[in-house]
Structure formats: C-alpha cells, structure tokens
C-alpha cells in the first residue's frame, strides 16, 4: 500500500513538467455571409464555456485561433489547412454548414486532426462518412424530427403535410419524421420544398398546404426563413385549421422574440430549450445574459458552450499528453444545460435528450413549455465504420 503510494507520487512528480501542455484550438465559424448570426451565437457560447470551465485545465493552456468560414467549403478547407499545417492547431471546432463539414471531412480524417462539430447536422457526417477524428456535440438532422413522429401519432394526429427548404438538411429532417410517423400509423398526404435561397414569400406554399386538408403541418425552417415563415403562417390565419409543428429551429431562442405572438401555440422538438430546469442551464443562461446584453442563450450558443467544455474535459483527462487527448474527446460525458450528454462510441455523434415543447406567448414574451422529454436519443450506426 505504502509502496504504491510512493510510486504514484513519484509518477505524479515526474509527470508534472510534461502536463503543462499548450493546446491551440482552431475555431472555424461563419462570421460573414448568411450564417453569420449563428456563428456569433456559437462563438459567444464557446467563449463563455472557456470562462466557466477553464479552471479544469490546471497547468495546461488553451489558445484560441479563429477564422471565417462564410458558407464556402473551398475557402474553409484552405483555412483549416492553414490552422493545422501552419499554425499547428491541435483541435478544430465550429462548422455551421453541412457542405463545409463535408469539404473538411477528408482533410481532418487523413491529417488525424480532431474536429468537434458544434452545429452542422448532416446525417452522413456521423454515418457513412464518419471518422474517428470527428466528434459532434450538436445534433444530427434526423434525430431532431424523428421523435415527433410517434408523439404526434399518440396525440391522435393521422395526417400530416411536410414543408422544408429544398436542400439536404430539409430533406433529412422530413424523411426522418416521415419514417417514424408512418410507422406509428400516420399518413403524409402532401409535401412542399421551397427553394432555400430567395424564398421570402411563403404565402403560396401556406395556401396550398391549407387546401390539402391535413391535420398537421410538420416543418423545418431556420434563421430568417423561420421568422418569415412563422409570421406569415399566423398572418394567413392558418394555425386554426392546420396546427404548426416543426424542428425546434423553427422557433429558436435566437429569434423567437421577433416572432412574438405569431409563435404562440407552435409545437416543436429540439435538443435544447432555454426553460430546461437544471443548475447547469441556470448557470449558462445567467452567464450568457450577463455577458451578452441580456440576450437569451440559444441552442446554437449551448452547442458552442458544450464544445468548449468537451475540449477542456478531454484536455484534463489527457493529463498533458497530447497524443492521448485525441482519444479522450469521444469519452467525455457530462450534465450540461441540455441535460445529460455523451458521445456515441460507434458514430461519435452526441447522445442527448430531445424536448417536445409548446411556445406560449404572454406579456410580450414567448416561453417554452416542455410537453415531453425523450431521453437518450441515439442515432442508428447508419453505415459508420470507425
């Protein structure tokens, strides 16, 4: 007993100088272009995460590098190469657009650079195009809407109309919903996919969906499109005949205050809502609102926050050993603002709760009333070979 104790202390002493490792974290986010808003949220969250969990680093240090990805895969690849090859970044994080993630995948895989994805939801990134070096803390597109199928069927809804922008994420979200909704006995009786770019007027689509006679409208829209869609939906008085459901980005905390009364009654599913009741979320929201002009921390900000925490916990677990650090990222698990979170060893996608919530508008404010919590939502392996 005594001998082992001495041995451990000697080992600890020997390990001390080596444990002061310097880590360079390359943050790749859109700071200009269409996704710049999301980029800002994620970066704010990331910085708050460094602040809240930085003390776990001990003697190790983190230096943050940052560069703008726009929504441009080619330019991002070049910038990622600069971070890794010239600036010697130890880990990359960020990435909002799935196309940008797709463009980076082969580079991070072949250069064995860990990448912590804090938004891009493309199913394939943790499916057939997965990599042991890619860890996703945000979500996969399918996991968000998959939980809505059985839940809607349980509420007695038999027919649904689908609507999402015409691009990969839109189709993945809708396909996942369709599969589980139909398995639960529901029927999709119509669908529409407006062009991703340039659609400002959803009037024609809303009029058409209303005419279909479906019992529910299931949608996915995000950002400016979500604001316009929800507002126009309310203006057309469509909610009465055809209640609106969606992936929770439809009424994200980032902009639900702009939608205001129009968001009232919209039911959606997401991995995070600001009203989740736990100590970690309280700390996150209080810290975020104090640091950023009282703005509510959104699911995007949480993804940045948790990315920072994941990286810090992995650094702490590696104990100064950079080679070990790469393997530690996928082993991290913790209770965060969105509840319990861990990484699936088979795909390196996040395993987390999904919250089905109703937006309620009162006194000029929208709050999220959680109707159901689906715990430990995990993707199928989907062809991923590590």
């Amino acid at each position, binding site marked *: 007993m005594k001998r082992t104790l001495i041995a451990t202390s000697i080992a600890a002493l020997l390990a001390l100088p080596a444990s002061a490792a310097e880590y360079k974290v390359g943050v790749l986010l859109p700071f*200009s*272009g*269409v996704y*710049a*808003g999301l*980029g*800002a949220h994620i970066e704010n969250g990331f910085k708050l995460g460094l602040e809240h969990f930085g003390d776990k680093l001990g003697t190790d240090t983190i230096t943050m590098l940052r560069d703008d990805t726009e929504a441009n895969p080619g330019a991002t690849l070049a910038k990622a190469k600069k971070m890794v090859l010239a600036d010697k970044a130890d880990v990359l994080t960020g990435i909002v657009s799935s196309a940008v993630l797709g463009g980076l995948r082969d580079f991070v895989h072949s250069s064995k650079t860990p990448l912590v994805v804090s938004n891009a939801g493309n199913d394939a990134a943790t499916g057939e195009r997965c990599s042991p070096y890619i860890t996703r803390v945000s979500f996969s597109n399918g996991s968000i809407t998959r939980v809505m199928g059985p839940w809607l069927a349980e509420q007695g809804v038999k027919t649904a109309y689908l609507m999402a922008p*015409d691009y990969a994420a839109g189709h993945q979200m809708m396909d996942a919903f369709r599969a589980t909704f139909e398995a639960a006995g529901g029927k999709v009786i119509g669908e*529409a*996919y*407006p*062009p991703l*770019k*340039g*659609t*400002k*007027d959803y*009037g*024609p*689509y809303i*009029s*058409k969906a209303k*005419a279909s006679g479906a019992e529910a409208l299931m949608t996915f829209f995000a*950002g*400016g499109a979500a*604001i*316009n869609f929800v*507002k*126009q939906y309310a*203006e*057309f*008085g*469509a909610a009465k005949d055809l209640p609106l459901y969606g992936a929770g980005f439809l009424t994200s905390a*980032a*902009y639900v*205050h*702009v*939608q*205001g009364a129009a968001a009232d009654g919209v039911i959606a599913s997401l991995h995070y809502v600001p009203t989740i009741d736990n100590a970690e979320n309280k700390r996150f929201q209080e810290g975020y609102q104090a640091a950023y002009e009282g703005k509510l921390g959104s699911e995007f900000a949480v993804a940045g926050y948790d990315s920072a925490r994941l990286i810090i916990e992995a650094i702490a677990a590696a104990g100064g050993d950079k080679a070990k650090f790469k393997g530690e990222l996928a082993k991290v698990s913790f209770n965060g603002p969105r509840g319990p979170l861990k990484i699936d060893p088979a795909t390196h996608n996040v395993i987390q709760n999904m919250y089905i919530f109703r937006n309620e508008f009162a006194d*000029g404010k929208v709050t999220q009333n959680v109707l159901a919590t689906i715990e430990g939502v995990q993707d199928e392996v989907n062809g991923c070979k590590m």
Partner: protein
Amino acid sequence: MLTDPSFWLVQGLNSLQLAMLLFLLSVGLTVIFGLMNFVNLAHGSLYALGALIGYSIAEASGSVFLAFLLAPLAVTAVGALLYITLIERLRSAGPLPQVLVTFGLIFVLMDAQRYLWGSDALGVTGDVPFSGTIHIGSEPYPAYRLFIIAVGIAVFAGLYLLLNRTRLGAEVRAGVDDAETAAALGVNVERTFFLVFLLGCGLAGLAGAVAMPAFSAEAGMGVEILVPTLVVVVVGGLGSLSGAFVGSLVIGVTLTFGTALFPDFAGIAMYAALVAVLLLRPQGLLPARS
C-alpha cells in the same frame, strides 16, 4: 385545388404583393439606368438599409408609420453622400467604372450594416399597422399584404403623374430620350440625374421599410433581392416606368404561380423567364427607347 376559385384569388393577391415590392425596388433602378446609363448594383443594399433603419426607428419610437416616413429620407441622404463622393466623379468615365464602384459598395455597405445592426434577423416587436387577418369571401388573408399592394399602386400613380405632369418629369423624359439634345435645350441634365438618383434611393429605402414588418430585416437581405430586381428591370425594359411595373407583375406572377403549380421548377422559373424575354424581345417588354 385548381378548380377552387379561392386558390386563384389568394395566389393572385400573393403575386400582386410580391410584384409591388419588386416594383418599388426596380423603378428607381430602371430610371437611373435610363437616364445615366449605368446600373446601380448597390440598390439592393439601400433596400436593406431602409429595412434596418426602419427597424431601429420603429423600435425606438414605437411607431412603424414614423419608420415608413423617416427611413426613406435617411436612405436618400446616404444616396446623396454616395453620389457626391463616388458616382459623380465617374460621370465622364463611362458606365463600366460606375457599375464597378457600386459592386464594391455592396461589400462595404453589407459589412457596415453587420457592424451597426449585427447579423441576427430583426423584426419589430411593437404593434404593426394592418397586422390583422381579413376575410376575402371565406378566405383569411393578411391585411398587411393588401397594404403593400396599395403602397405599390400609389407609388406607381404618383410617379406617373410626376413624369407626365411636372417640369422635372419632362426633363427626365427628355434626358432618357436623348441626354445631349436635352442639355442643348437648356435642361440641367446633371441636376436631373442627381434628383432622379435620390428619388430612386428613397424608393429603395421605402421598399425596405415597408417590407421590414412582413419579412424581418437583416444585413445581407440586399444581396438576395438584387438579382430578382435586376431581372425585373431587364424583363420590363430599361429606363421605363411602365416597363418596371409590367416587369414586376410578370416576375411576381411567374414566381408565385411557378412555385404553386410547378414546385420542382421554382428555383429556375425566374431565370427561364429572363432568358426567354431576352431572346424573344431583347429590349424588354416596354422599353423607354425603341
């Protein structure tokens, strides 16, 4: 669906609403082109500026009407600044340098907007006039859209009178027709250019302010709207008020009914219309000069 008259009515109103928004934007652009022979590519950025300034005014004062009034004036002031500092200097250099300067301005104005208003989409949180739903027959329809249609038609009527009943209008028509002769006849062409440019900027600002309550405002919205606006200008015929009006209707109808009836081709409908018009009638539907 196709036999349901309310489908045609509602989609018809949707077409008209989109067309009037496009008209407010394209009319300034087309008259500037007709007179000064250059395309102001930053026109969309002025539209975004109108929406963002309108947002700030509405939030600060609580009155969206005040935003409709002041935002166009503010954008006109920005336009005057751009004209005096950049565009006037290039009057003698020909159209291409002027187009290029406005192309550079797109990037400058967009970043300026991001710096001042951030990157999030913004929407008024206070009361918006005409925000309710009205019933046309049995169909509920957003009243605000009817308001946009009314603004578009009022602006068209106002411009028509301005062009045909006032001295400035006569000067503009003379300038579009033949700037040199107009100048020889004693028209101060440079002054006319300046006034028309300002009017175009003001209308872009008005379009932005009027669109803001319905479509939210964000830095970057100007780039998105630029291409459809250019398409309207070319389809309608350069330099012509009625051309801009007709072009807006054609594109509004193409986009709305295209998406409702042929959703798979929604993305290319507008470009197909553009190419078709350019091939069958390269001068546009109602050009100012034959």
